[in-house]
């Protein structure tokens, strides 16, 4: 496994964000080229949250993820070729083709499972926290999930368990509620954090598009949890990418053009607002270039490196065969 990006390194966070973005763009192309690949829940637009949180973790920390998990798996160092292969149902996929786009799992990168049942990962992550605590481990358990997940009773129960037993769990809520159409959550609470707070769980709310803000919030959260102070609810506010449709995502904002970070007047089209205000990747590239952390050239070079890596990864995946139907009954029991 590839090591996760060096902690606290802002350039590494940006690099990770580019990787996450380009990975998902390629997934969308894969879905267009191979119609059977099915529904995709892309992580586009969540990169600042994902990369910044991952930057605060150690390889021993354990993840339970949801249907919208590609970004995390890649950010933690899973092989992109095997990830593409999994999304395509191929033999060399991370799960041998059994999981597909909703269930990418790489145990060596710290992933225990991906539940696409809304609320599933929250309960399981509390269990991983219980296991780690029982084992006397210093690692923590992380689960990310959407705002809509708070509607499910199991999520409430899980938060309560984590709080009563003071378990080392980071509840990372990616709140992409404002999608213009129907919100993914229908919660009577004034604010999402009112729920964990009612259960005496410390809640931290940050701007999920701002990688620096997320990294800071995650740092505080992880320090608390690792210090034994119990679970933390970290809510990152995001706005859903305009291309994310439940059945068929599209490219209404076009393929990412990183030079828009410094050529802002070129941003146009129906969704220019999203790119200008909600695209955390563009914003972070601009921040790092503006404050002199990175040159424009280095940013574009990173992007080229990522694209090359992913081109090879896609080739690997395309070349991978389907699993042999005779293997159908493998791995039912351990």
């Amino acid at each position, binding site marked *: 496994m590839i090591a996760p990006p060096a902690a606290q390194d802002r350039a590494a966070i940006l690099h990770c964000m580019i990787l996450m973005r380009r990975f998902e763009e390629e997934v969308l192309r894969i879905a267009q080229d191979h119609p059977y690949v099915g529904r995709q829940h892309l992580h586009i637009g969540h990169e600042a949250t994902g990369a910044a949180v991952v930057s605060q973790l150690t390889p021993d920390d354990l993840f339970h993820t949801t249907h919208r998990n590609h970004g995390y798996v890649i950010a933690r160092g899973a092989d992109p070729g095997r990830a593409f292969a999994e999304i395509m149902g*191929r033999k060399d996929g991370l799960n041998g083709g059994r999981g597909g786009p909703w269930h990418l799992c790489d145990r060596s990168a710290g992933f225990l499972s991906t539940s696409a049942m809304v609320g599933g990962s929250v309960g399981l992550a509390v269990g991983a926290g219980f296991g780690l605590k029982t084992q006397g481990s210093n690692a923590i358990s992380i689960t990310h999930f959407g705002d*809509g997940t708070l509607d499910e009773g199991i999520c409430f129960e899980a938060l309560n368990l984590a709080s009563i037993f003071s378990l080392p769990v980071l509840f990372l809520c990616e709140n992409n509620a404002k999608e213009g159409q129907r919100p993914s959550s229908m919660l009577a609470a004034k604010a999402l954090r009112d729920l964990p707070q009612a259960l005496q769980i410390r809640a931290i709310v940050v701007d999920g598009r701002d990688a620096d803000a997320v990294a800071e919030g995650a740092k505080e959260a992880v320090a608390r949890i690792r210090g034994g102070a119990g679970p933390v609810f970290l809510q990152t506010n995001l706005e859903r990418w305009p291309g994310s449709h439940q059945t068929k995502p599209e490219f209404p904002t076009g393929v990412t053009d990183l030079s828009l970070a410094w050529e802002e007047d070129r941003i146009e089209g129906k969704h220019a607002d999203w790119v200008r205000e909600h695209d955390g990747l563009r914003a972070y590239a601009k921040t790092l270039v503006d404050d002199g952390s990175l040159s424009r050239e280095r940013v574009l070079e990173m992007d080229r490196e990522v694209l090359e890596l992913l081109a090879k990864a896609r080739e690997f995946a395309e070349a991978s065969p*389907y699993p042999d139907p005779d293997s*159908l*009954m493998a791995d039912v029991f351990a």
Partner: protein
Amino acid sequence: MTKKFYAQALIEALTETAEEDPGFALIGRGILGHGAHAHFDKPLMERFGDRITDPPTSEGAVASMAIGAAMAGTRMFCHFGTASFTLEAVNQLIHEAGVAHSMSGGQIKVPLVFHMYHGLRRGGAGQHSSSPQSMYANNPGLQMIMPTTPRDAKGMLRAALKCDSPTLYIDHGALLGTEGEVPDEPYEVPLGRADIRREGSDITIVATSRAVLWAVEAAERLAAEGIDAEVVDPRSIVPLDAEAIVTSIRKTGRLVTVDEGYQMCSIGSEIAALAAERAMDALKGPVARVARPPVPVPFSPPLEEAMTPGPDRIIAAVKATFA
């Protein structure tokens, strides 16, 4: 009679019920799913959109809400979407809806239809492919319908919506786009009566839901090879028309069951057991079941395909009973 899509027929049943009963209420969005035939819900949405409540992702409480409202006298239709999600509401379906009438000594009625899409759907993988019909059928107090033609979809849903017992309507998304003749005048198809979808003399194939389409296809292909199969579609699982099924088995002397769900403790097992109990002396060969093998549904297309109890596997099973 007019040729209509299954999706249209289903919506007609809801629209007519809404017309007739001003108290009738619906919970759940996307009654026709998100596929090519979803737009057929328009007649319902336009006229009765205000009767439909869009709930949060809280299957247990949503089921309870429908049950409690029905207990309070409101006729309800509750749509769950993917049947897999109902596994968050099992306790409510079985231990509340299923027992209420009996446990109250007949005082409480639950006029309610739960609708859900079961089955393999290409790429649903291990968590979005559930066919829970056999699990639910193991419990008392819940009627269960699985119509497979537009005519039956409308007529059975109408019948279920008129009665005062809770009914699970377990549907398959692949049926929405099938077409068939639907009566123009109001009608109902009573629960508990099987339909012979194809008459035959050599073997009985009992299949449910989408698997009926596979069974009919298999029967046509078998006919070309000189095997004349009878295809029985129970249509309603609870109550089950055991009489008609047993009569067909006794007539042909052979039985293959087809179940899109897992095999163990399935509707297929139940039908095979009926044969062993009530048609043993008339059987000329071993019974065979075609169903999912016991492995979580894999995402990979050729693996999912390999576990699908489609026409090829049905034909192989039929031939094996003659071996």
